[in-house]
């Protein structure tokens, strides 16, 4: 079963990597409508490093999930790599997530039953890589983030910083165009946080589009652009 990736995951080179227009997201809460994102207009070009900042509850994570096609907008348009995401079905969107986007979460989100190698292999499995191919690639990635010695360890046997490295290696498994990181250093001490950030910035330098949600001013300093959100609206870019 070889997946037909043509057309679906192919991003147009000339267009910005993502464009949002009048994008809204709201939740129905007991007859009251809770607007989490209001009229978001955002354009990000390939290779940019964007920091998303804002107070707690302002909608940063929601926006990032929207960018990563995990969530669907209530209204408005979203083009990812020249594709109108609202026209794609669940299969195609899943495919895009797997092939073009790498997620790094605040709480690492590794699968507890799987060891380091197996965790890194998961995204490749869903793209239909062969077992040998993906095991080899996973080993390379683990070595790259400095975990060459801990391939057989379970997440519970790793420190927070090490777990986040596994998560980064996993995010890179399918060589995505965009890395989305939601407070990647939020659960780490400053030292390992700095190391994680170094790895992420290194990826940006290698040409990946990097979008980081953060509360940390230091992180934002490195970013090419800061998007600030207040109460669901982008205040300044």
């Amino acid at each position, binding site marked *: 079963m070889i997946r037909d990736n043509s057309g679906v995951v192919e991003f147009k080179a000339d267009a910005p990597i993502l464009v949002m227009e009048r994008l809204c997201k709201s939740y129905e809460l007991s007859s009251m409508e809770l607007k989490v994102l209001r009229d978001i207009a955002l354009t990000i070009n390939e290779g940019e490093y964007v920091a998303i900042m804002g107070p707690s509850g302002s909608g940063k994570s929601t926006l990032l999930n929207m960018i990563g096609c*995990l969530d669907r907008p209530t209204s408005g348009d979203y083009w990812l790599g020249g594709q109108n995401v609202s026209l794609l079905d669940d299969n195609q969107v899943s495919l895009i*997530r797997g092939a073009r986007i790498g*997620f790094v979460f605040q709480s690492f*989100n590794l*699968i507890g039953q799987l060891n380091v190698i197996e965790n890194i292999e998961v995204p490749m499995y*869903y793209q239909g890589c062969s077992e040998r191919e993906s095991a080899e690639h996973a080993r390379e990635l683990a070595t790259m983030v400095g975990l060459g010695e801990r391939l057989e360890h379970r997440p519970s046997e790793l420190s927070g910083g090490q777990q986040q490295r596994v998560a980064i290696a996993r995010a890179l498994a399918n060589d995505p165009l965009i890395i989305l990181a939601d407070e990647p250093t939020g659960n780490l001490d400053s030292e390992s946080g700095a190391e994680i950030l170094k790895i992420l910035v290194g990826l940006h330098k290698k040409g990946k589009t990097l979008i980081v949600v953060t509360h940390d001013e230091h992180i934002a300093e490195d970013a090419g652009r800061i998007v600030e959100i207040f109460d669901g609206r982008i205040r300044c870019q």
Partner: protein
Amino acid sequence: MFLFRLKRTAKLGIKSLWMHKLRSTLTTLGIIFGVSSVIAMLAIGEGASQAAQEQIARLGSRNIIIKTIPPPEDKEVSGQNQSMREYGLTYLDAERFRNSIRNIEVVVPSRRLPQQAWYRNRKVAVEVIGTVPWYPEISPIQLRAGRFLGSIDMHHRQGVCIVDENVMKELFVFDDPMGQDVKIAQDYYRVAGVVSPEDLGAAAQTPGNDTEKAKAQGGANVGCIYIPLTTVRNRFGEISMQYSGVSGRTMERVELQEITVKVGAMEEVLPTRDMLETLLDRFHKKNDYQVIVPLELLKQARQTQRIFSIVLGSIAAISLLVGGIGIMNIMLATVSERTREIGIRRALGARRRDIVLQFLSETLLLTLLGGILGIGLGSLVPIMVTHFGRMPTIITGTSLLLAFGISGAVGVIFGLYPAYRAANMDPIESLRHE
């Protein structure tokens, strides 16, 4: 490529089942019992039908057996003629069958007498069968040595006999029986041949209670000795002494104990039976005969088999249903336990159908595991039934395959809903799940 994925999906499933070994085994109990009942049911059914088939082969599917039975006690008759009772099939009956029913190919009249046979100083109880040379046509006996009765023996009322292998073993032990003389009652008979036993298993002794009678008259016999019908008539006569507790002794006169007829084809068996019965009805007002059609025994066997199938089939159905629901329950628990994992997998590119496949294959593995254990247990049940219940059972390859297929089907049926629940969870909500 697809095989790769299948293999890895299976691996994933085995891994997560292995993590909950006890839970997995307990969950499969229903399936185990269901599958074992399916196998037991099929094995018992198969055994029963095979046994019936064998019985028919032994009695002959184209045979109709007419037996003499003592008529119900008639006060007037017994008052009239106290010392002599006369009943049963006659040589004339055999003649009438032969002459008036065209379908009949062979008519074999025979006499059956419980007797003692002597050789040197050894004595065994036997059944003496006085019959005709074409007796082997209606019986499964096979010639092992020498010859069977011939027309010359009949004609000259020779003192010859044919013994079966059981008699040979008990009476002659290590000696070669051929040409030896056996003493039965007052006369000697020279052994002219040896045949295979007729197999007087319980099944062969159809409705009549001959075995009990034989036992009452001096223990079960070890086998049969065949003597020309004419010789038997000449030497034993037709009158026998019956001893009963109340009225002392009575004399009985019975010409033939049995007439077996064979028709050309199986379809002719039942019509011929009807003709025989009308014919017999005309000449036997006393109701002193019984007609046995081996072909009809098959019907009885099927009936028994059906009852077994219904009982075991319902046990199987209930166990499988309960087992399936149990599995669904566990899978639903597993799905909600692993909500976060599902969210993670979705974020990493798993499509809905990947999630369906993952949980479905886990359920399938669980039920197939139950299926395999059930096949193990289910194969033991028929063995025990055969051992303790003395009932033939046969486990066929098809029944094992069927049982395996059923467990797979249960897996798919009861696994689909949990798998779809898992696949339709919102990725964001699952990621937030604690």
